[in-house]
């Protein structure tokens, strides 16, 4: 079984400032890692994913994340945020050994970008 912890339920930040959203996971098996974004009254949209290889992955909208196996973390970063980045962000993992793609989600982090 896996679990995902997003320590920050809300992150307020000023426009054009950098931001980091933290994600830690726990699993007895290897996992794939994902970040999703959810805008109000919409479904979830994939930002980026880590399957294997380079630990730094780049996604859409200028976001990137770094996989750290020793710290079991997958923190999301953006060097300069925009008002339009205001949304809920979910970190998720899936089991490498499973043939399916079931996700275990964190509780989400609400990013609030202020002018």
């Amino acid at each position: 079984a896996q679990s995902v912890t997003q320590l920050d339920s809300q992150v307020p930040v000023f426009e054009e400032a950098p931001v980091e959203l933290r994600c830690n996971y726990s699993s007895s098996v290897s996992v794939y890692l994902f970040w999703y974004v959810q805008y109000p009254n919409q479904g979830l949209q994939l930002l980026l994913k880590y399957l294997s290889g380079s630990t730094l992955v780049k996604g859409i909208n200028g976001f990137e994340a770094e996989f750290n196996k020793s710290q079991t973390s997958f923190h999301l970063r953006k060097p300069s945020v925009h008002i339009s980045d205001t949304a809920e962000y979910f970190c998720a993992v899936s089991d490498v050994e499973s043939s399916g793609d079931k996700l275990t989600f964190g509780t989400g982090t609400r990013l609030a970008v202020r002018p």
Partner: protein
Amino acid sequence: DAMVIQNPRYQVTQFGKPVTLSCSQTLNHNVMYWYQQKSSQAPKLLFHYYDKDFNNEADTPDNFQSRRPNTSFCFLDIRSPGLGDAAMYLCATSRGGGGQPQHFGDGTRLSIL
């Protein structure tokens, strides 16, 4: 564009009156999922289909059922909605096989009167 479409976007029903939510996909994905999402919470998986194989989560109430008549369509039936079932219901698809991202529809917001 290939996508996941949920209808309707907003659904109002009466307490105890059966309701069906629908989801269709043009991605030709093998796996379809139904999630329940309440305000300020993560999506909670109710069940999923891998092709025709139905997989129910252990804590999904019996009140919730699903049908997948073909690859493209999947339905969520709530037999006797209670006030606690008011939520956003999200449909998602994936290719299956491991490591594949899920693609989500925009959801149906269900209100119970």
